[in-house]
């Protein structure tokens, strides 16, 4: 244990995701030895992000105004929504340049053991977005793990009988991997999602 403010800093850093007690200590001492200008810049960035960045009122993505950059873009296709767990998933899909529609960020996956149920996620907001009938396609892009799968199961049931085309991202084999190392669930999904090759 260190004294007063140093320990306070270590405690705060240790609460960040992915930062263990050792890393928290290392970062704290790095900050102590840094130039005050650098530290002030870091402190300012932390304060500003909380002050200025909000969540998009349409899709739940991070935004600097009421709506995010994507929802504000008139060139995006209004008929299709891609549902993801977190804002970082939006960034990942945007990098592919494959999708021209808009997003809906749920805020996580359904995980009963962690106390996260459907009412803790943005499902109601999604249903509200679908009310006017403009959206005709939903692409479910929750994480390719079992919580993501259960969340997709729940969502596809919500969307049943609404006349919307619902698809789920194929979870296939990792590119660059060897077939023999694939576990049976991944391999099974890849079989389900196989596609026709042009002759």
């Amino acid at each position, binding site marked *: 244990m260190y004294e007063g403010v140093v320990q306070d800093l270590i405690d705060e850093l240790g609460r960040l995701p992915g930062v263990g007690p050792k890393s928290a200590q290392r970062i704290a001492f790095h900050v102590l030895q840094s130039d005050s200008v650098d530290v002030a810049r870091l402190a300012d960035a932390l304060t500003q992000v909380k002050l200025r960045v909000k969540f998009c009122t349409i899709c739940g993505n991070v935004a600097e105004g009421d709506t995010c950059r994507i929802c504000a873009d008139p060139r995006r296709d209004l008929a299709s929504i891609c549902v993801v767990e977190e804002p970082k998933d939006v960034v990942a899909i945007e990098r592919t340049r494959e999708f021209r529609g808009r997003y809906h960020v749920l805020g996580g996956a359904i995980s009963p053991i962690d106390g996260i149920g459907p009412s803790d996620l943005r499902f109601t907001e999604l249903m509200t977005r679908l009310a006017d009938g403009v959206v005709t396609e939903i692409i479910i892009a929750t994480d390719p793990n*079992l919580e993501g799968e259960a969340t997709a*199961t729940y969502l596809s049931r919500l969307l049943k009988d609404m006349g919307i085309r619902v698809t789920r991202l194929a979870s296939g084999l990792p590119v660059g991997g060897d077939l023999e190392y694939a576990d049976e*669930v991944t391999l099974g999904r890849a079989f389900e999602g196989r596609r026709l090759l042009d002759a």
Partner: protein
Amino acid sequence: MPLYRDEAIVLRTQKLGEADRIVTLLTRTRGKVRVVGKGVRRTKSRFGSRLEPGMHIDLQCYEGRNLDTVTQVETLDAWGDTISRDYPAYTAQGAIVETCDRLTEEHAPAIQQYLLLGGALRSLAGAEHDPGLVLDAYLLRALAVAGWAPSFHDCARCGDPGPHRGFNIQAGGAVCSVCRPPGSAAPAPETLVLLAALLTGDWVIADASADRHRREGNGLVSAFLQWHLEKQVRSLRMVERV
């Protein structure tokens, strides 16, 4: 570094650092253990889906000072995968694994709890019965293994042969008219028959039960569970009953 190999069922996972996970497992021979799956969250991980909740696995680990580290893992049954595609079953699995996590301790062998857990997940994955009934049967038996067997027939206090009309959680189940504490419930006789069937595994009776008795029975089982585990089982309120 000491290596060990065991059969296990994945209870829960928590993110650790950039790409790792802490995986809580109930093993067949060494009780509950917490292990690190290095790199599991990377889509190229060689562990794939094998360390996900509800999976039945054969694993090899090396013992660490705090946490053990997974070196090899093979799937025995992909229960968790099948269950994740059936939402009511998924919510039942949540309550089952959370209860199991609460009733077991690290490095304390719990073979009976292990077998119960495996039986419940196998049944959910096979869609053999209503998921709500599988859950209640599991909860009653897991509590019984923990030493809190409720009585649904004879008086829980004096042993007077039943059936009795009164039911009291604190007293341990059915109570005769003499022992019956004030404020005891008076469930339908069919509900107590259902609960007794779930506890003993009489699925012919359980499958034939009416919805209202299932609902009443489920309320009593939940109350019974909460009474014995001081802290609330969070996933219980999310269970979707048909």
